[in-house]
């Protein structure tokens, strides 16, 4: 491109396009359970999509690879499972409690890890997550290898029976939409602008007087809380919270989803989560070979379209920054 380009001129058009896409997305969510797809599958997909989007906030928009996001996802699942099953919390309050626990953990982990970069950041987050895994293995309330089973779905606000799968579906869809909207807003906010600045040129942001470390901790906390929201919701959907949710495999899976879909794009992680969850579901019959298939897909992705599915599509559209 040569010479000045005008991008602000077509802002209303972009706004309209954005609204149309959002409308179409909502329509898909509303129609999906009536297409013959299993609602449990759709709900699982939304939980993982939200998880991947939350993770992508760090990787794609701050440029930090956390290899410990399972800790937030899994601990939130345990916390929600516990307060709903043992303390009789309303499912909605239970999910909020799970997200809050994850957010608080994010604040602490972030404060510890945030000054590190690249591989060191990944290693510290992994180490912290391993400690959480060990903690979950040892303490009583997680019930060790069994996990928390039989978490009741209950009545939402005492009114809506979540044992009805369609009710449950729309409850999960609402959570997904809200979580996604929070991420969208965070990226497209003054705070998101600061994140962009940090990703592009961190020393310059420091020299402009931005409290860079605090901004990153904040982003990490939001990311952790939303990963927790996803995990908490998952525990209500499947009525279980287990060690799988806090295992490092889970941290790896969310990296995979985000990279396959396209990191640093709003919709990429959703697509990536869709691909992985669908594979796991439809290839469940071949057992542990799923891992191999996923590995192959990942390698092919990295070798052929590095930007991820959505990233490649966006890069090929004309006039996109």
């Amino acid at each position, binding site marked *: 491109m040569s010479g000045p*380009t005008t991008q602000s001129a077509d802002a209303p058009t972009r706004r309209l396009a954005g609204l149309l896409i959002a409308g179409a997305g909502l329509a898909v969510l509303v129609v999906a359970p009536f297409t013959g797809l299993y609602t449990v599958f759709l709900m699982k997909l939304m939980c993982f999509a939200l998880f991947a989007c939350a993770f992508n906030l760090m990787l794609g928009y701050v440029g930090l690879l956390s290899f410990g996001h399972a800790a937030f996802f899994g601990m939130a699942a345990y916390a929600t499972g516990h307060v709903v099953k043992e303390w009789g919390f309303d499912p909605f309050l239970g999910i909020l409690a799970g997200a809050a626990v994850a957010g608080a953990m994010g604040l602490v982990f972030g404060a510890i890890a945030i000054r590190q970069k690249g591989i060191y950041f990944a290693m510290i987050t992994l180490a912290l997550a391993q400690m959480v895994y060990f903690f979950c293995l040892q303490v009583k309330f997680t019930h060790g290898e069994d996990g928390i089973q039989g978490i009741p779905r209950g009545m939402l606000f005492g009114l809506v029976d979540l044992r009805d799968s369609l009710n449950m579906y729309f409850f999960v869809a609402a959570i997904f939409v809200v979580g996604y909207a929070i991420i969208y807003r965070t990226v497209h906010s*003054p705070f998101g*602008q600061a994140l*962009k*600045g940090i990703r592009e040129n961190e020393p310059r942001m420091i*020299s402009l007087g931005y409290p860079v470390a605090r901004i990153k901790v904040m982003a990490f906390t939001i990311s952790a809380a939303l990963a927790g929201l996803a995990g908490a919701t998952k525990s209500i959907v499947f009525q279980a919270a287990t060690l799988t949710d806090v295992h490092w495999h889970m941290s790896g899976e969310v990296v995979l989803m985000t990279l396959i879909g396209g990191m640093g794009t709003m919709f990429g992680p959703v697509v990536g989560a869709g691909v992985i969850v669908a594979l796991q579901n439809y290839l469940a019959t071949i057992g542990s070979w799923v891992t191999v298939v996923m590995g192959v897909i990942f390698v092919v992705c990295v070798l052929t379209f590095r930007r991820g599915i959505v990233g490649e599509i966006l890069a090929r559209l004309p006039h996109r*920054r």
Partner: protein
Amino acid sequence: MVHLLETHALTKQFAGFVAVKDVNLRVRKGHIHALIGPNGAGKTTCFNLITKFLQPTSGSIVYDGRDITRDSAGAVARTGLVRSFQISAVFPHLTALENVRLGLQQPTGLTFSFWKPTRVLYRLHDRARELLEAVGLSEFADTTAGEMPYGRKRALEIATTLALEPELMLLDEPMAGMGHEDIARVSDLIRKVSENRTVLMVEHNLEVVSTLSDTITVLQRGQILAEGSYDEVSNDPAVREAYMGTGGE
């Protein structure tokens, strides 16, 4: 107060190697102060120390009568001491307008508002355009910074720095790698912006230094060799021998 910035016996040691040694720098309020010296003399290290990108091994830094030796880099910037970098430091994927807007955003207190739309920053656009105009970049407002010519990028950095209304601007080789035309433009720009602020700059181009600066400090192997006006410094025998005598630049 006559001196806006003072360093006292500022020293920085890297694994046994002393990059900056006992530097007593005094920058007068309202002056353009140049820091010159051969490659590796420790000029950039001095900047890094003053702006707290590096922690001094010993010595102290006093800015505007306050000891800032223990402050963080961000805190120093927020008190009005803002630096630029030797290598180009724009935000390459943002437009020129967005670059300057990031400078303007910092003091607004909006930075942590992750729940507000980017739109709330649009009220900064008028000021951003004024700054772009001041550095001659009006027509580049919507150009992605990474696509701008080198000289324009440096001007954009100055505009972004000016957005913070810094009291003291530290410019590290603002004209390095520029052609004649750009040099003239940026020189004029620095002169213009220095009217109501203080500038400390590193520059290799002695012609620029001689016409722009009120005071010059010559640094060599981490130590101050001479200080004074251009005439004083250029007639100093030690400088002639150590710096100009070797061919200079």
